[in-house]
């Protein structure tokens, strides 16, 4: 259980409208990821759902029940914060048990549930430690434990992994995905990380200035971005955009080609260009190529590539994967 | 019940009603607020009322409404006018000197050196010592004609011992006040210095600033609001100084060091003249309010946004 509906929700801080009227429906069991540039209102939206912030107008419903005026605690949601937000003066055991204690469960029951959660999160040996004595990854696990122990209708995550180092981040990402597979609880997850968004989400919501630009599965967004903004935002490295004469040849104001959809050759191709910086990642090579008439383009080549700064190369975009945008930046149909 | 019915208990009286409602809705704040109102605001209103009456505790039968008569009296009374001047000179001299000395203390102990902790502790101690004991220490260990270190030094140089407090009463009081309040200024200024990050000072030095230029162009401008804050707070406390005067000079010799608070104390507890004392009290409160207004503005800007 746990489908969430926002209808006509707006939020103003003073005179500033951070969220213009917004509608969103989240199905039970979905893993929804909010992405968007910094300051676009992801956190605000999450806090509106959580009840930590009051909506200026509109309504929020969970399982069909309007909970717009309901206090955060009564909404049956759990939140995991970027800063972990653990209670520093309580041992892990009490941290995880706190929501149950507030719900008035008896001691034995709390102890049992806390033990069970600690078991699933590999925290059993740390139950008596204070948050201050734990590593970042362990702290985040405690925070997750505190969220799942009360069996909420939905989890809200606000960039939960961004304080962790790269390796740990991958681990935790997998752990959270696994948890979601197992619990099947609705989750809303805010992140800046492309990989997190693409790998974890069943549905991605792309926000810009409080407006939903597009909602869809990761592959939908990747393959059929609705406009220039989404096209540029989803995918890494970023999609190449070409305007002017070259775009006009395709009957569009702008065309977009992802770096991985451009073939590279030393002998022949559609566009001739000069190689700038070359980034060797081992698994891939990113080339920054300046093409007269099209501008600088990024090209992604699988594996290692023996090209050097200043070399002349030829680029050929995959004709089936060229995205076309009109003057208003909206996507046009693919070329037949 | 009518839909627009106001909450029954407080809704009737406009201003009081709003206030009452607020109190009702903020049960966590209300007790603290009420204690403060009852213990400080109510008495002040009474002071204002007393100031309008001719009232001497020794001649209660003469009590009568006197309008602004008490105010006219005190503004014709040279003792009061003198005490105002005394208060002002104490405050201005002591605040400015304390600021200067406090700034020197702060600059001296800001950077790390051997025993900085002890030096800081010694420097703040005059502020922690009970004011009357601090004044007592000065009276007997420093300024006393017989036991004082000052006269011992004078004698070592062949001079004649001096009755310091008798000869220089105002200077003596100011000296003790500065001794007591300079640490207060230092504490706030030090916090200001700590808020100035080292990078800025280092950058200035890289740009070729010497110690003097660094102080003048980087440190002092940064300290401005801390100096203001400590100066305003200091003024409010020093204008009301009573303890040091009570212990050091009892307002004398003559009335040389009688400031307004001391005069009020004398009027109430030596002459039992409630009416005039109350009028003086109202005047000093009004005077303080001017300074307090500036202070609140400053505090407000330091605090940033509220509500």
């Amino acid at each position: 259980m746990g489908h969430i509906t926002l209808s006509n929700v707006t939020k103003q801080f003073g005179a500033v409208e951070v969220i213009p009227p917004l509608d969103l429906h989240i199905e039970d069991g979905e893993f929804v990821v909010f992405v968007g540039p910094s300051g676009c209102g992801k956190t605000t939206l999450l806090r509106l759902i959580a009840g930590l912030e009051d909506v200026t107008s509109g309504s929020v419903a969970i399982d069909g029940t309007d909970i717009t005026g309901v206090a955060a605690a009564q909404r049956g949601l759990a939140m995991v914060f970027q800063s972990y937000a653990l209670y520093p003066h309580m041992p892990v055991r009490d941290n995880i048990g706190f929501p149950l204690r507030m719900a008035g469960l008896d001691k034995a029951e709390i102890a049992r549930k806390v033990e069970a959660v600690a078991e699933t999160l590999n925290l059993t040996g740390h139950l008596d430690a204070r948050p201050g004595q734990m590593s970042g990854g362990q702290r985040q696990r405690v925070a997750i434990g505190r969220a799942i122990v009360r069996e909420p209708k939905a989890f809200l995550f606000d960039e939960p992994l961004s304080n962790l180092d790269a390796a740990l981040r991958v681990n935790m990402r997998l752990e959270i995905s696994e948890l979601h597979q197992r619990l099947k609880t609705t989750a809303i997850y805010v992140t800046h990380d492309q990989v997190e968004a693409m790998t974890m989400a069943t549905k991605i919501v792309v926000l810009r200035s409080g407006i939903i630009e597009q909602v869809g599965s990761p592959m939908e967004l990747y393959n059929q971005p609705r406009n220039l903004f989404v096209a540029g935002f989803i995918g890494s490295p970023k999609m190449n955009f070409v305007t002017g004469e070259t775009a006009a040849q395709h009957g569009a104001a702008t065309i977009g080609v992802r770096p991985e959809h451009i073939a590279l050759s030393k002998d022949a191709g559609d566009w001739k260009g000069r190689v700038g910086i070359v980034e060797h990642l081992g698994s891939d090579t990113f080339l920054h190529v300046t093409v007269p008439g099209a501008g600088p383009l990024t090209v992604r080549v699988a594996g290692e590539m023996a090209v050097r700064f200043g070399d002349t190369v030829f680029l050929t975009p995959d004709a089936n994967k060229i995205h076309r945008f009109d003057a208003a930046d909206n996507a046009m149909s693919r070329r037949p | 019940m009518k839909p627009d019915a106001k909450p029954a208990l407080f809704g009737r009286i406009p201003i009081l009603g709003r206030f009452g409602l607020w109190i009702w809705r903020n049960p966590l704040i209300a007790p603290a607020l009420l204690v403060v109102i009852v213990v400080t605001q109510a008495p002040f209103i009474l002071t204002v009322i007393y100031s309008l009456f001719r009232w001497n505790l020794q001649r209660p039968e003469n009590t009568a409404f006197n309008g602004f008569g008490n105010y006219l009296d005190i503004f014709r009374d040279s003792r009061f006018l003198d005490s105002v001047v005394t208060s002002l000179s104490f405050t201005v001299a002591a605040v400015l000197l304390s600021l200067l000395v406090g700034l020197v203390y702060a600059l001296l102990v800001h950077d790390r050196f051997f025993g900085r902790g002890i030096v800081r502790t010694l420097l703040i101690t005059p502020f922690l010592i009970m004011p009357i004991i601090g004044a007592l220490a000065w009276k007997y260990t420093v300024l006393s004609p017989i036991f004082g270190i000052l006269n011992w030094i004078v004698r070592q140089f062949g001079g004649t011992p001096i009755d310091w407090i008798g000869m220089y009463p105002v200077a003596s009081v100011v000296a003790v006040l500065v001794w007591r309040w300079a640490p207060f200024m230092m504490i706030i200024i030090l916090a200001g210095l700590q808020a100035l990050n080292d990078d800025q000072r280092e950058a200035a030095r890289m740009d070729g600033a010497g110690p003097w230029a660094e102080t003048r162009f980087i440190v002092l401008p940064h300290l401005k609001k801390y100096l203001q804050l400590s100066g305003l707070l200091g003024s409010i406390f020093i204008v009301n100084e009573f303890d040091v005067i009570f212990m050091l000079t009892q307002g004398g010799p003559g009335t040389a060091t009688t400031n307004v608070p001391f005069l009020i104390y004398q009027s109430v507890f030596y002459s039992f003249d409630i009416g005039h004392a109350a009028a003086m009290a109202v005047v000093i409160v009004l005077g303080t309010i001017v300074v307090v207004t500036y202070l609140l503005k400053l505090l407000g800007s330091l605090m940033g946004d509220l509500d």
Partner: protein
Amino acid sequence: MAFWNRRPAAARGIERASRLRTVLAWGVALFVSFPFLYLATSGLKTEVEAPKMPPAFVPVPEFLNGIPFTYTPTLQNYRLILAGDFMPYFVNSAMATLVSTLIVLLLAIPAAYALTLPQTTSKRNVLFFLISTRFLPVVGVIIPIFLATRFVGLLDNVLALIILYTAMNLPIAVWMMRSFFQDLPADVLDAGRMDGAGTFHELTLIALPMVKNGVLATAFLAIIFAWNEFLLALTLTTTRAATVPLYMISFMSAQGLWYAKMSAAGTLVALPVVILGWFGQKWLVRGLSMGAVK
């Protein structure tokens, strides 16, 4: 280079003062401390020795008698004082100070907390009203307070001092506690709200344990102000409820100028909060600036 200068330059923070400044700072500190250090010293001398000049600073064992600037310390003055009528004054001071501080904390903590909550309205007005009462000259209210205290029969009763010291310290305590509450990470309090803590539990189970130092600092400051208070004690008490500053006054007028005993008494009276202040040094600035400066 002196041994203490050998710390790595990379140990960041405030940089090192020059040798000259070190000497200067020590000089100024000792100069400024003379009155109270010498007072404390005199309290350890005999009545004969105390007023003698040149001043003797250095306590030495008896067999070294006669070296200039030295004296043989004795606790005899303290014994006499403690055997005399000092204790009742001390108990009164302790009562007035500690009880008022306790009440101050009980009232200030919830108020300060509520003044950080987003739903509380008129926060600015309340805060500024509170603090302006602290800046109101005591002489502005002393007359009605004296009369009212007399009227309700609380003259020379510690209760009167407790009430007044409570009101005196409340505004500063509220401001100070509020500044500590405001420094708490908002996420942790939000987490509390998500976990179902109401305002009461949020305060008692989450916020308060996280600002333990703040409570301690506030208590320190309230104790210092209450203990050192003189004017109200002077006007509202005479014998039964008199506090230590009044002990000092009555001691001086009753016993005359016994220099050594007076010094010992002064030291004894001032020492408790001086020590407290030494320990609470790093928090003083917050209290003295109403939490505006950290």
